[in-house]
């Protein structure tokens, strides 16, 4: 039932991946990082509402936690977190001006989910 006197709750977006570009020139790191000039890191944000839908990529535990939260708000909802990450290759000059190409793991969010 709609209660006209109460302000309607603002709709919050569900957990999903959002764009986040890290530009190395913004932090002055472009003098030693040769390539790439920056990279798409992404981030996860959004609600994990009850009941958890399949596309929210949740675990059984997250479903239980969300269920408990729906009857006891002292227990927090599941969190929207990265569930899949991928590496990034950087070509850079080190302290001795030697050129290094290195693969750094878990730098890009590929998928988000409720955990």
């Amino acid at each position: 039932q709609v209660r006209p006197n109460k302000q309607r709750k603002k709709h919050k977006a569900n957990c999903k991946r959002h764009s986040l570009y890290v530009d190395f020139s913004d932090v002055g790191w472009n003098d030693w990082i040769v390539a790439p000039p920056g990279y798409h890191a992404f981030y996860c944000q959004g609600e994990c509402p009850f009941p958890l839908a399949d596309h929210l990529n949740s675990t059984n535990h997250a479903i239980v936690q969300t269920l408990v939260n729906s009857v006891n708000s002292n227990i927090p909802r599941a969190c929207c977190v990265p569930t899949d990450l991928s590496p990034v290759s950087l070509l850079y000059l080190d302290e001795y001006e030697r050129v290094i190409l290195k693969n750094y793991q878990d730098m890009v969010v590929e998928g988000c989910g409720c955990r």
Partner: protein
Amino acid sequence: GARGLVPQIGRSSLSQDVLHAFELRLLSMFGLKHRPSPSRSAVVPQYMMDLYSMHSVNAEQNNSNRPKGSLGKGSERSASRANTIRSFHHDESTEDLSSSSGKTTQRFLFNLTSIPGEEFVTSAELRIFREQVVSSPSNGSLAGFHRINVHEIIRPSGSLQEPITRLLDTRLVQHSLSKWESFDVSPAVTRWTADGRPNHGFVVEIVHPDQDSKRHVRVSRSLHDREDTWPQMRPLLVTYSHDGKGNVLHSREKR
């Protein structure tokens, strides 16, 4: 520098110390103790750019400028077991070039102390550029050919004795072509890095048929005509290693 990464909200309340600590944390994530500050003269070898284009998971799709055929199957195979590729130029102050009776030898010393102890070198290649030599045809069956031998120095030469070396790789090349040659020097680099044996460097021996073709293999600045192109043409040692963290470098895939 880290200021740009900190979100607008709450930025003003962060002190310089916090920002500095934040940057150090980021650098440590990259395996660096402090922020590198390379000079303007720092040279990035084209080969490393090519390797980046080939193995980077985030490289631009358009890399049509990449020289075709510059990366062999060998580098692809080496990178398939590594997550780090490092390049080194030799210390020119320690080089020792000598030439006599159709043979040129050059001693190279590469300082590999910057390779962290926890990194395991899976392979290494010594890359040498040779520039086309146009010479008059000769009657000999081996005319137009050079042999390049790469040795590891096991014990340096003393006052009365010759150095003790062992052959690492050898190749017969034609001097009518301009081309980079890659020599497998993995056994020596592994001995120096993993086994902790002393690094006395390499000896590259070039057997050439005549004086005209002596300059074909560019093992020394003195054999290269142009000073401005030397930084990109000089010998390069490339090591492939793994630090035990994360995935290996692989050929770029469409995402």
